[in-house]
C-alpha cells in the first residue's frame, strides 16, 4: 500500500503556504473565518489573505499573549479565529492564554504555529519550538496536529475550520513532497496514516520528519528490511489503536520528530506501549536535551540523525 513519490519536488510547497492558500479559499465563502496575526502575515503567507479579505484579518502587532486572548474573545463570539504566530512564541509566551482562555474556557481558537521546530535554523534557540508538543500535551482540551505534507495540511486546515474545539496546527517552512498518491489513505484528526507498509519495523514520525522516514524505508528495502511508515500527524488524541496493531505486527518501533525527545511524540508512544504491555525494541529520535548545534534546519536535523541515513541506521541497529 502506498506509492512513494520519488520526484515531486517541482510541485512541493511549504506546508504553511498551503495553509494560507487553503484558509483564503475557505474564508472567501465563510465570513466568520478571521485570521489573527502578530505582525506575522508575511511569514504566515497571509499577505494575499489580507489584501483580498481585509475585513477578515485582525492585526494585533507583536503581542502574543494578547493575540491569543483576543482570538479567544473572537471565538467566544462565534468567529472562527485562526491565531497565527511563530510556534516558538505562540506556545511559550502565550501558553497561559492557551491554557486558560482557549482550552479551559473552551473557546475553539485555531492556533497556528508557523516556522516550527528548527525551521528558523541559524536564527537560533529563541526561534526554535522544540517544546510545543510537550507543553500542549499537558493541557486538556486541545487537539495537536502536525501535518506532514501538502495534502495533510489542506485537510487539516479544512477540519480545523469545522472544529468546535481548540486545535493546534504546526507547520514548517520547507517544501514538502507528497507522501503518497493513494487516495484511499484519507485524513482525519486522531487517525495515523500508514504511508508505507512493511512488516519488520515501524517508523512513526510526524511533520517534516515523515519524508526522511519514508526515504529511510526505501533505503532499508535495499538491505531487505521492510519498514512500515506512519504519519502520526495527530499527537493528541494519539491513535493508540494503530500503535497497538503495529506493535503486534512488527519487531521494533522508532519514533521521529522535530522536537525535543522530552514530552513529544516518542514519549507519548512509549507511555502507551509500556502501559499496554507491548514490549518491543523502541527508540525515540528527536533533538536531545541540549541547545542545538547551530546551522540550517537540514544541518541541525542531520546532526541529530533525523535524516534518511540516520533513521535507516537506527532501524538496523534496533533490529540487530
Amino acid at each position, binding site marked *: 500500500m502506498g506509492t512513494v513519490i520519488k520526484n515531486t519536488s517541482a510541485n512541493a510547497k511549504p506546508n504553511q503556504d498551503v495553509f494560507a492558500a487553503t484558509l483564503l479559499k475557505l474564508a472567501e465563502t465563510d465570513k466568520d473565518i478571521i485570521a489573527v496575526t502578530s505582525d506575522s502575515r508575511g511569514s504566515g503567507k497571509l499577505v494575499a489573505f489580507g489584501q483580498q479579505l481585509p475585513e477578515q484579518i485582525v492585526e494585533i502587532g507583536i*503581542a502574543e*499573549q494578547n493575540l491569543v*486572548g483576543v482570538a479567544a474573545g473572537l471565538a*467566544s463570539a462565534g468567529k472562527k*479565529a485562526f491565531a497565527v504566530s511563530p510556534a516558538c512564541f505562540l506556545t511559550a509566551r502565550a501558553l497561559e492564554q492557551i491554557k486558560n*482562555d482557549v482550552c*479551559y474556557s473552551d473557546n475553539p481558537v485555531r492556533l497556528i504555529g508557523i516556522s516550527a521546530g528548527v525551521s528558523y535554523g541559524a536564527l537560533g534557540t529563541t526561534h526554535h519550538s522544540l517544546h510545543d508538543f510537550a507543553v500542549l500535551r499537558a493541557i486538556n482540551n486541545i487537539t495537536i496536529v502536525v501535518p506532514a505534507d501538502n495534502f495533510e495540511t489542506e485537510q487539516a486546515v479544512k477540519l480545523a475550520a469545522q472544529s468546535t474545539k481548540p486545535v493546534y496546527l504546526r507547520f514548517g517552512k520547507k517544501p514538502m513532497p507528497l507522501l503518497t498518491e493513494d487516495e484511499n489513505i484519507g485524513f482525519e484528526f486522531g487517525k495515523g496514516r500508514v504511508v508505507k507498509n512493511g512488516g519488520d519495523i515501524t517508523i512513526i514520525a510526524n511533520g517534516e520528519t515523515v519524508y526522511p522516514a519514508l526515504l529511510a524505508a526505501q533505503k532499508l528495502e535495499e538491505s531487505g528490511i521492510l519498514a512500515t511508515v506512519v504519519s502520526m500527524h495527530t499527537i493528541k488524541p494519539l491513535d493508540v489503536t494503530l500503535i497497538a496493531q503495529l506493535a503486534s505486527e512488527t519487531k521494533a518501533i522508532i519514533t521521529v520528530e522535530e522536537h525535543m525527545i522530552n514530552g513529544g511524540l516518542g514519549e507519548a508512544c512509549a507511555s502507551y506501549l509500556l502501559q499496554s504491555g507491548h514490549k518491543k525494541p523502541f527508540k525515540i529520535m528527536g533533538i536531545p536535551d541540549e541547545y542545538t548545534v547551530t546551522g540550517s534546519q537540514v544541518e541541525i536535523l542531520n546532526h541529530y540523525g533525523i535524516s534518511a541515513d540516520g533513521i535507516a541506521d537506527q532501524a538496523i541497529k534496533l533490529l540487530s
Partner: protein
Amino acid sequence: MTDKELKEKSVGYRKKILKYIVGANAGHTGGSLSCIDVLNVLYNDVLNVSPDNFTSPDRDRYIQSKGHCVEALFVVLADKGFFPETDLETLCKYKSHYIGHPTKKVHGVEQNTGALGHGLPIAAGVALAAKLDKKDYRVFTLLGDGELPEGSNWEAALTASHYKLDNLCAIIDNNKLQITGTNAEVCNTDPLDAKFESFGWAVKQVDGHDIHALREAFASMPFEPGKPNLIIAHTIKGKGISFMENSVKWHHGVPNHEQYQSAMTELDVALTNI
C-alpha cells in the same frame, strides 16, 4: 430600579458575600466588598443579560478579570436568577462548580478567569467581534488595580484603542491595596488616568461606591465615540465593614463567628440608614 433600591441591594449582597465566605471558610473578602457596588449597578441597571437571553449572541457580556472576587459575582448571579442561591452553600466544597474563581460551569459566567491579566484581551476580542458583525452589544470587564502590572493588559489596551472599541468598557476596582500592601508600594501604576488616556482611552473617575455616580458613568457610554471606555472606580477594600475597610489583611481573610456577627449588625444598621 431607584438608587435607594440599588443601595439596599448592595447591603444585601454584602451580607451574602460574607455569609458564603464564612460558609466556605475561604474567599476574597476585601475585594469582593470593594467591587460589589460596581457589579450591582452593572447587573441591575446596565447589562442586557439575563438567564433568559444568556445564549443570545446579542447579549451584553461581562467578563470578570479579577476572578478571585468571584463571591461578589456569584451572589449577584444568584440574585438575577441564574441559579438557586442555595447552590452557594457548596462554595469551594468537594465537587462543587462554585469554586474560588469564575467558571463557565456556573450559569451566567462568560469566561473562565482567575489568572490575572486575561480579562481585557478576551473582552477586546469579543468587542471586536461585535464591531465585525455590526452588532450593538457591549462588553464590560472588571480589573483589579493590583493586576495592572500584567503586561497583557497594556497589550490589550493598545488593541482596544487601535480598533476604536467604544463598545468596550473596562472598570478598574481601584481599592489601592493588594496582597502584599498598597499598589504604590508593590508596583506604582499611577497615574492610571493619564496612562490609559495616552493609550487612546476615554477615562472617567467615579466613587465606586456611589450608586448614582456609577449609573451616570455607565449611561454616558461611549464617553467619546471611537475610544474604548475606562471607569476608574475609586473604592475601599472591605467597604461596608468598618474593621475590614482599607486593611490588607482582609484581602482573603475570613471572619470568625464574632466578627461575622459584628459585620452583619453593622450592615443591618446600614440598611436602616439608607
